[in-house]
Structure formats: structure tokens, C-alpha cells
């Protein structure tokens, strides 16, 4: 009984995964990426902060190359700001494309 009570008080709501959350975002996908990554520069980057900072995990490292899954992007721009080498060329998606926040 005590155990149950403790669980009820402390159990978080059924946690949504990041994928679940991204599924909730209204997005109009463009066919061209608004993000370009200069992989040559990334090879010398020790921290690779873009992989961690992105709230949508847009960036992935595959065989030492950083790739941007631009469809996930929430357009906050943190990756561009946190990249000290300027390896991320980030432009806004074309007009009308990208995310639309309802409850911003």
C-alpha cells in the first residue's frame, strides 16, 4: 500500500518521447534543406554541441559526418549560435514552410 502511494505521488505522467513530441508540431516540409553543414570544419570540432543542443535532435553523426535532418527543425537557431566554428549555415526555411506554432 505504502509503495503504491509513493508511486502515485512520484510517478511522472506517461513521458512522451521526443519523437512523440515532434509529431505534435505542425510543419510544412520543404523539399530543400535550410541547413548546410560544413563537414570539413566539423572534423576538427571536439565538442559537437549541435548534436546536444538541438531540442529536436536535428543533427546526427554518421561515420564521422554531421548530417542535418532539417524536417525536424523547430527553427530556434541555437545550433547556429552555439557552433563556434561557423560550420552551420542556417537560413530561415522559405516563406510559408517550416513550423507553425499554435500555442507559442
Amino acid at each position, binding site marked *: 500500500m505504502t509503495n503504491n502511494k509513493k508511486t502515485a*505521488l*512520484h*510517478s*511522472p*505522467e506517461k*513521458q*512522451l518521447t*521526443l519523437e512523440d*513530441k*515532434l509529431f*505534435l*508540431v505542425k510543419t*510544412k516540409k520543404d523539399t530543400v534543406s535550410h541547413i548546410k553543414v560544413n563537414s570539413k570544419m566539423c572534423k576538427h570540432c571536439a*565538442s559537437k*554541441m549541435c548534436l*546536444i*543542443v*538541438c*531540442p*529536436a*535532435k536535428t543533427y546526427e553523426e554518421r561515420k564521422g559526418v554531421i548530417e542535418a535532418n532539417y524536417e525536424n527543425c*523547430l*527553427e*530556434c*537557431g*541555437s545550433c*547556429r*549560435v*552555439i557552433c*563556434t566554428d*561557423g560550420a552551420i549555415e*542556417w*537560413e*530561415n*526555411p*522559405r*516563406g*510559408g514552410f*517550416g*513550423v*507553425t*506554432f*499554435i*500555442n*507559442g
Partner: protein
Amino acid sequence: MDKVEVIIVGAGPSGLTCAYTLAKAGVEVVVIERGEYPGAKNMFGGIFFSSIMSKIFPDFFADAPWERFVGKRKFSLLAGNSEMAFDFTPSAFNEPPYNHSFMARRGSMDQWLAKKAEAAGASIINNYCVSDFLYEHDKVVGITSGGDHDTLLADVIVCAEGANSLLSEKARLRKKIMAGRRSIAVKENIRLPRAVIEDRFGLTGRQGAAYEYFGASVQGLLGNGFIYTNQDSLSVGVGFSLSDFTKTQTDKNPNDILDEFKSHPVIAPLLRGGETMEYMAHMIPSDGYDYLPKLYRDGLLVVGDAAGLLNTSFFHEGVNLAMASGIFAAETVIAAREQKDFSADTLEFYEEKLKKSFVLQDLKNCKNFLSFLHKHKSLINDYPVLLNNVLVDYFQVCEKPKIQIKKEIFQRVKKNVKFTRVAWDMWGAWSNLI
């Protein structure tokens, strides 16, 4: 190429206020928005500070789509699984004008403001992304979306494109924005029945609660977590400094940090039964008074978040500073139009107006806030734990005489911390933070 008198890039609070003020004075103004409607790309914590809004639009209170007025405020310190809080429900905040603080959602609020600007005569073009300015010699003379034919010229342009301002960099008003100049915020909109929200937070009618959580709310990072009540949903989020995030070398991403905040034993019961409707992210300017971009050049003015005009201290005021800057930019353009001179020499008037107002005076006043906390992270991480332990000991119920408990607390604290250090930190906190 087509030409108008004024182009405003971005339909947020600063751009739309500027457009409204100009249109009302009979100036031809076009607002260009990259989203499908004004507010579609915008996100804020959730409190619309409306002192400027209600001054320009007296029908704001009766007509605008605000959710709740901020009748209750809570500033909370989390230490491990514990909470210590300062809860503040003054009657003054619960009567008109409700301290000019309202929970809102940007989509609906920015569209309401856009309708006001349109009614005054401004044109708004949605779904158009400005990728760069056009120049003639050194003067900004127009905008382009990249294509050769997608251009529009103007006498003067107002850049109101928000925190992730690419255009102010391209116009060389600032160097590339670095991590020290921005925070990131992620938030969820969590739906709960209206009656549940009102019972859970102790609210009546359109009264709302704004809870800010410091200390262990964001994994020891420089930032905080928050819960704001809408009518039938909660805005729940975390925000923290990007440079501190880099320095900390955490492997948690902002969504992990939000999830841990949401499942904190103090927070989780407040969200119980809620359904996440949306997940969003945005940057917050934290340029600080000493590192603001250049605010004007020939043919160009910068307003709102793009200009770094946000109070980064406890106050978190952004919208009213943005709207004030929009008005000052409009007044400057009106004066420049009379002189038929849109050069930097005339537009300089804008910065003077900002300096004389609360906008730059408040920014100047809180300019050491973040740098002080960067250097004194013990204020966020160690002192809350210390205070919590002292309080737990102080209120313990046992058979020891209280006088002995007090002596023991004193001895233990003396062993762990230097009082001169604490006094010094507290003095620093008093002069830099409050």
C-alpha cells in the same frame, strides 16, 4: 521594382506596433512575415506584459485574446527533491489593470495586434521570407527573398525579425551571434480541464498563476523552469543560457532537461492528467546592455528581440520593451520622413529615445545579472541546498530543546561555509540581481 515608404520585417509585437503607429500617422507601411500568419513562428514563456499595449489599445482588456491575468506569482527554489517558495498574491495584481501582466498565446495575440495594424492601414504579407537586404552604396534600400524578381524597395526598413536575427548580422550591425548572447527555451502546451487548473492552482475566474522555479529546476544550469496557467492549458517550460550549457558539458538535450523538470516530485503533481498538445522551442536574447548590436544604419532600424531588447533579470520582460521600441522606431521614421532624410544621422534619434526610456535604462540596470550568476553559480546550486538543510533542521520535531537545535545548526553551518564569503555573495546578489 515596386517601392513603398516603409517595410517592416517580422510581424511580432515590435514590428506590428511599429506598423500600427506608422499607419495611423498616414505612412505607407508593409509588414512582411515569413510564417503563415503573424505569430506562427513565435514563442515566448507565456506572460504578455501589456503596459504599452493597453496604452495604445484601451480595448485590450475587453477585447484581446489573453488567457488569464497574473494574479498569483511564485518564485520557488528547488533543492534536490525539496522546494522553498515565495508565494505572492497581492490584491493589487487582482484588480484592473492587473499589473499589466497576462498569460497569452502568441499565435492569437499577434494576430489580434496584426488586425489592429491592418485596420489602421498597414499591409501585411504572410508566407514571405526576407533573405537579405538590398543596398545602394552603403544605404539599405530594399529587401529580397533571394529570387531576382522577389524584391521590394522602401525609404526605410525596420528589422523586427526576432531573437534569431540573421538580417542584423548580414547588415553588419553585429558580429555573428554567439552562445554568450542567447538563451534557449523549450516549452510544452499541456491541456487540462479549466476546473482542474482552477482547483489545483487555487484560482478564481480569469485569475492565473505564474510559477518560476530556480535552483535545481534546470540541472544546475543558469536559467529556470516555469509553469503559467492558461484558461484550459498550462505553459510548462525551461530556459537556460547557451554558454552555460556549453560550459557544463552536459549530454542532456533541452528536451531531456524539460522532461526532468516535469517529473520533479514538486512539479509532476501540478501537471498530473495533463495532455501535451504541442512542443516548441525558441531563443531568448541575453545580449545585455554592453553588447547590444548597433541599432541603426543608413535606411535601417532594428527593434525588439532582434535588437536584444529584453530584460534578462528576474523580470523577464520582453513584449513591452519590444512594443516600446516599435513605437520609438515609428516616431523616428515619421520625423525622418518630414526631413526627407533616412540616413543614420537622422535615425540616431531612435537610440536616443530608447536611452531616455525604461527600455535601455532597465537593460543598463540589469546588465550584470547574468555575468554575476555565471561567476557565482553557488547561488543557484549550493545555497538552496544549504538553506533547505537549515530549514529542515530548524523545524525538526524531536525531544531536543530548541535552543540546542539552534546551536547545532549554527555549528554545522559554521563548519561548512565561511560567513564572510556568504556575506560577500549576498551583498553581490543584492547589488547585481535585485
